[in-house]
């Protein structure tokens, strides 16, 4: 493993060095599934994979930053669900789309800020704070909906979700824009540099007179905001608000980030790797679906994927 916290090496070289792990798995997945299923490499299915991966990408991007700061956000799946339920609730009540989007994002922001503030100011372990928050959000989603599905959300949101621009579904554009924003944020802003440094050497950042706490909380706030944004897509995809819709999605997100080569130590993060990781997870789920494997086993195979990624990582570190 590299010792320096802030990576000053040539980014291209750095990328090439890391590429094999996740690219290899991606390649293996593509080859295996195109042999197993003739539908796999068809244009409609590829588009399908893209659309299905949008929500996962949107929560995996901030998760990369959170993990880079040696933290974790276990609450993201439950928060996504809660925000989705909020969006559906306001849509059903007012039929006002902008208001619903605003409310969902605000709820995400508030929960994200709360996570960040407790973790940073109280110096509590991130996993236990966000685990507690997971329970809280899950519960709140059930309370808001009373355990039922909110279905009278109108047609606009569903129509927008299925709309196409230049033959490509709208959600894919959202996903690409989110990726571009996070890429720029991490590699071309001061905030991004600080994110690298918080995980690597928080104390020296503090000694340099930078208000680390604000930036650290900001990472969790971003995570919450993105959960809010992704929840709109979730609500649109299902055309309803369901109180257990995205439970457990944090596992997919964490898996995508780890598979993408971001490690839990020393602020080692790679945004494009996360992008590839999300596609790998998306392809794995889609391919297993095509082959007729139940979703319960899909979860287990994602666990296996993470294991392979870590073993590859360990192997490379030794070489």
């Amino acid at each position: 493993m590299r010792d320096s916290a802030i990576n000053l090496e040539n980014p291209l070289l750095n990328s090439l060095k890391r590429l094999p792990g996740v690219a290899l798995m991606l390649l293996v997945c593509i080859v295996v599934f195109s042999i197993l299923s003739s539908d796999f490499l068809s244009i409609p299915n590829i588009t399908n994979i893209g659309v299905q991966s949008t929500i996962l990408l949107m929560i995996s991007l901030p998760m990369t930053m959170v993990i880079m700061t040696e933290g974790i956000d276990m609450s993201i799946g439950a928060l996504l669900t809660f925000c989705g339920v909020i969006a559906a609730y306001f849509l059903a009540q007012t039929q006002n789309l902008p208001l619903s989007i605003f409310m969902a994002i605000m709820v995400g922001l508030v929960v994200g800020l709360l996570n960040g503030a407790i973790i940073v100011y109280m110096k509590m372990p991130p996993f236990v704070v966000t685990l507690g928050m997971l329970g809280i959000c899950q519960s709140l989603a059930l309370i808001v909906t009373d355990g039922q599905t909110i279905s009278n959300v109108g047609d606009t949101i569903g129509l927008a979700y299925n709309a196409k621009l230049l033959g490509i579904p709208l959600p894919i554009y959202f996903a690409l824009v989110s990726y571009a924003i996070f890429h720029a944020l991490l590699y071309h802003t001061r905030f991004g540099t600080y994110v690298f440094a918080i995980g690597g050497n928080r104390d020296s950042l503090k000694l340099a007179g930078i208000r680390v706490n604000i930036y650290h909380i900001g990472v969790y706030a971003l995570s919450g905001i993105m959960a809010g944004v992704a929840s709109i897509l979730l609500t649109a995809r299902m055309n309803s608000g369901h109180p257990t819709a995205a439970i457990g999605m944090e596992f997919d997100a964490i898996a995508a980030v780890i598979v993408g080569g971001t490690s839990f130590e020393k602020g080692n993060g790679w945004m494009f790797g996360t992008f590839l990781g999300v596609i790998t997870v998306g392809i794995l789920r889609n391919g297993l679906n095509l082959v007729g494997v139940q979703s319960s086993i899909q979860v287990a195979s994602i666990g296996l994927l993470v294991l392979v990624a870590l073993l590859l990582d360990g192997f490379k570190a030794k070489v």
Partner: protein
Amino acid sequence: MTNLIKELGNTTQFKNIFFRMLVVIIICIVLSFLTEAFFTTNNLLNVLRQASLLFLMASGLTLVLLTAGIDLSVGANVGMSACVAAVAMTSTGSTLLGFLSGIGCGILIGVGNGLLVTFLRLPSFIATYGMLWILHGLTYYMMAGTTINGFDKSFRFIGSGYLYGIPVPIYIMSLFLIGGSIFTKYSIYGQQIYAVGANPLSARLSGVPVNRRLMLVYILSGMTAGLASLVFLARLNSAEGDIGENLTLPAIAAVLIGGTSLFGGVGTMFGTLIGALILTLVLNGMNILTIDGNYQALVTGIIIILSVFLDLIFRRKVSS
């Protein structure tokens, strides 16, 4: 005699336990004022039985927390082991085989967790969290949406039977409590587990086989989860794929309320029992006050965050 009491009062451990006992008593008093349904023999025995089940799961988890790790897969482990035991029992008709396969499944999962943590050096919360979802997936797959019920009467005795008017799980809990306390306090293994949690480096330098002790706690945690699953199964008398879904948060909450530190090296079995009792009392109280069951995870989540917060404040006060 007074000197002894004074001395006991001075140790922080005694203060911790005493403070938590006080909380239990206060909750009991408040609940008995709020509703008549609380202070009945039936309800109190019910609370104790629930707390026993929770304690069985949480006892192994306590050991893991003593080493500054965590086992998020206990709930899923209970679910999987219960289903494995149920399948084994119904397909072979042998209660003993069901017993063994349930415990065996728990131990195997513990071995898996232990290998991930010691061999792959994964942070324990990631390793066991991944394990949680893998187990959920496998359990759903195994059960395929079916429910298995109607077990042998002799088997159900361990979960829903009575001995001298007291539910059997309470006896099992007492055995675990005594065994666990002796193990942690008086065995060399227990002392080494505390040492690993307090400072892994100094433990290693003083000759403690850190990895083997870590392995041991995850296996023990898996084993107690396996045992808990049997009592749980006997109590429910039915096994479904989602049986262990809502068990993880309460188990963690019980350990944390009981004064076991998330940062390792501090905690007792008896504390965990009190923690399980407090959480059960709160949830039971909510239940008989007819508060919506949807609020339970909310309360559990808040309790988890709050107890870690209090632990941190307490630690800072001690160190300063």
